[in-house]
């Protein structure tokens, strides 16, 4: 018997995503990921001053404010071939890495842990056993029996007062939940501690960005933070020392909790290291520039066809033609139309004209366009970035991957091979490695900034000047969810075209012009579904990509309460 399951909306994500799957003999055989919001945001910046675009575009998404702001200024800088002072690069790098750490922690603990952790089961745990399990894995000072017991009390009170319903769609007691009550309790304790730590990361962004949640310090050509060693209201040594304290707090949590919890989930759910593989061609961008031109980076990026690390081809600089010539977006299955037929358009020539139909299984069914790299879909995100690190022998990436495997082997006899990162749990593993790499780079950029200020260099900004005529630029970025690119065409100092190709577009896209599936659909095929009314397994795989579709915008339907529909076919 074939059953069609529609999950609409997928909860605990940013934005509005619908997933339709067909289940035959307990496994998913067909899948359609569909973005349910129109992305017309590019139109709003048309004819504006390119220096202002970033302030508007950071409003596109509530999760990725820093990320879109950064890609936008980079796009304009690339068009102008404008160099960015070293201090500004370091400050930007710190903001990006602090944001990435915060984003990964929130994703793991607040948005996806509930797919693996049964919080109700934690009420049955023995707090002493939970503490000794946790203490055996790290020397974190908040794993004591007292902490576990207090967490359990809090949890019992919370459930007892009937408040558990505030967590949308937690599948408590589902047969696919496998952690012991003690491991569940440890995870709940870390869930609460994660809230504290992500605050520290937010404060770094707020201190550097002058304001939060929307930053104010970016500028085309640098940053607007005046640096002074002795004055109030600017980036002082005192503030930088405060930032260092936040950085240290983050490091301790990453190493002692996030790392341990991912290893525990991987060890207890090993079958999910063999399920949920997305597209096997990977694309990432180098990032965290260490020079003024954007040609020397802290983290590598490039293309890996067929998962073959030895075939890695690097993207070597901002605006690399290898990237710019390779990216195109199709609309054969998306609710848009192009002026001259429907074949793919390179983003500088991109169009955003809506053409809504109903949901057509074999026609148009999503507001997300279908991006390709030299004609093929690609998987972007932490797996692509970690694999680029492995392919190039990046020391930080490789050492953290090894450390994760050490933790894994303390819990089970298993190891996560690089090829297994392309799986549902593998994506969480790749993400914790990326969070640790971001932390190391955050620390390093802090030191680079201090050292550079020490040389007497206080420059943070190069003034842009806009030529007559038409110029084009791409702002590329290895964002927390993967490769983000903003594409701008500037004519006589005004924006003539703008397109954003965002990570979730690469992953959640409908089929391409050549009917190739993108990663969500590929990953869902073969996934078991024990109970069609509670499709936890499908959600695990979708959540593992950290969907963020808010940069797709516009609501189409707002007052539905049902989120899972099951129909026999």
């Amino acid at each position, binding site marked *: 018997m074939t059953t069609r399951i529609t999950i609409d*909306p997928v*909860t*605990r*994500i*940013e*934005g*509005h995503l619908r997933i339709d799957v067909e289940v035959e003999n307990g496994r998913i055989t067909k899948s359609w990921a569909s973005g349910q*919001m129109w992305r*017309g*945001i590019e*139109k*709003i910046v048309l004819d504006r001053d390119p220096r202002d675009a970033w302030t*508007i575009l950071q*409003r*596109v*998404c*509530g*999760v990725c*404010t820093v990320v879109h702001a950064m890609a936008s200024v980079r796009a304009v800088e690339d068009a102008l071939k404008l160099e960015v002072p070293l201090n500004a690069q370091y400050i930007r790098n710190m903001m990006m890495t602090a944001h990435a750490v*915060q984003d990964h922690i*929130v994703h793991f603990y*607040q*948005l996806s842990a509930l797919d693996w952790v049964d919080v109700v089961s934690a009420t049955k745990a023995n707090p002493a056993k939970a503490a000794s399990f946790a203490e055996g894995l790290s020397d974190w000072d908040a794993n004591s029996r007292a902490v576990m017991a207090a967490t359990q009390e*809090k*949890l019992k009170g*919370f459930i007892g007062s009937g*408040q558990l*319903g*505030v*967590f*949308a769609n937690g599948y408590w007691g589902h047969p696919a939940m496998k952690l012991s009550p003690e491991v569940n309790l440890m995870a709940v304790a870390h*869930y*609460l501690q994660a*809230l504290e730590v*992500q*605050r520290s990361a*937010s*404060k770094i962004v*707020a201190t550097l960005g002058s304001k*939060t*949640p*929307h930053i104010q310090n970016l500028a085309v050509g640098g940053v607007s933070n005046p640096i002074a060693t002795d004055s109030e209201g600017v980036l002082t040594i005192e503030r930088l020392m405060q930032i260092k304290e936040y950085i240290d707090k983050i490091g301790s949590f990453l190493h002692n909790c996030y790392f341990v919890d991912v290893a525990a989930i991987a060890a207890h759910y090993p079958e999910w290291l063999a399920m949920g593989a997305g597209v096997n061609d990977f694309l990432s961008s180098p990032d965290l520039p260490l020079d003024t031109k954007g040609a020397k980076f802290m983290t590598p990026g490039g293309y890996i066809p067929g998962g073959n690390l030895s075939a890695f081809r690097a993207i070597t600089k901002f605006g690399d033609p290898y990237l710019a010539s390779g990216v195109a977006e199709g609309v054969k299955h998306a609710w848009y139309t192009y002026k001259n037929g429907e074949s793919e358009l390179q983003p500088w020539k991109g169009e955003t004209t809506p053409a809504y139909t109903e949901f057509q299984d074999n026609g148009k069914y999503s507001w997300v366009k279908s991006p390709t790299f030299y004609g093929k879909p690609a998987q972007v995100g932490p797996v692509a970035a970690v694999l680029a690190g492995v392919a190039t022998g990046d020391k930080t990436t490789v050492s953290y991957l090894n450390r994760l495997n050490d933790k894994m082997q303390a819990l089970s006899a298993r190891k996560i091979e690089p090829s297994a990162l392309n799986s549902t749990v593998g994506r969480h593993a790749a993400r914790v490695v990326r969070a640790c790499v971001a932390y190391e780079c955050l620390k390093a950029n802090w030191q680079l900034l201090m050292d550079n200020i020490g040389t007497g260099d206080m420059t943070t900004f190069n003034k842009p000047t806009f030529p007559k005529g038409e110029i084009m630029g791409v702002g590329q970025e290895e964002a927390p969810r993967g490769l983000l690119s903003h594409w701008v065409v500037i004519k006589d100092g005004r924006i003539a075209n703008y397109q954003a190709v965002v990570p979730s577009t690469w992953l959640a896209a409908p089929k391409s012009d050549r009917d190739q599936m993108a990663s969500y659909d590929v990953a869902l095929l073969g996934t078991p579904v024990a109970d069609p009314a509670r499709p936890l397994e499908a959600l695990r795989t979708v959540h593992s990509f950290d969907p963020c*579709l*808010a940069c797709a*915008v*516009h*609501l189409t*339907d*707002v*007052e*539905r*309460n049902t989120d899972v529909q099951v129909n026999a076919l």
Partner: protein
Amino acid sequence: MAKLDEYIESVRAENGMKSPLRKPDKAGKVLVLGIGNELLSDEGIGIHAIRALANRYDWAEIEIVDGGTTGMELLPQLEGVDRLIVVDAVRAGQPPASIVRLDGDRVPAYFKTKLSPHQVGLSDLLAAMSFKGTAPGHVVLIGVQPVTLSVGLELSPEVKARLDEVVNLVLAELTLNGHPVKMRN
């Protein structure tokens, strides 16, 4: 203030809120939070209201935040808040440009069933905070039913015409709870 009293009562009555007004509470920390996407015309009413409030009044004592479409990032601002006043576009099945006021348990219940990028974020944050035991003691939502959500930085004329009422309603909430704010000079 008599007029504001009447006004807030009338809005409460429209929403079936019969309970008496809370007694002024001087102690707790108050946060006025505007949320919404200002790129989508009326979806940005919360942001427009916050800007109007911030420009016209003196906020030395009370925190006022333009939250945009963010969620978890608002944790530092929300920690320790006793009284949270949220201004937002709401889809409550009312005629376009209606003003709506929700309080108490109806606010989290409302957020939970609503499909919108930013409310999902705020509701996840409030859920996490109530689990942690640090959720604001009182949450009031002041909203406007949008006329249009089309792409654009301007409010529709109908919603724009009600902006001052929204501003006054926020002032009334503050005043009636013992936290009046002064006009800027």
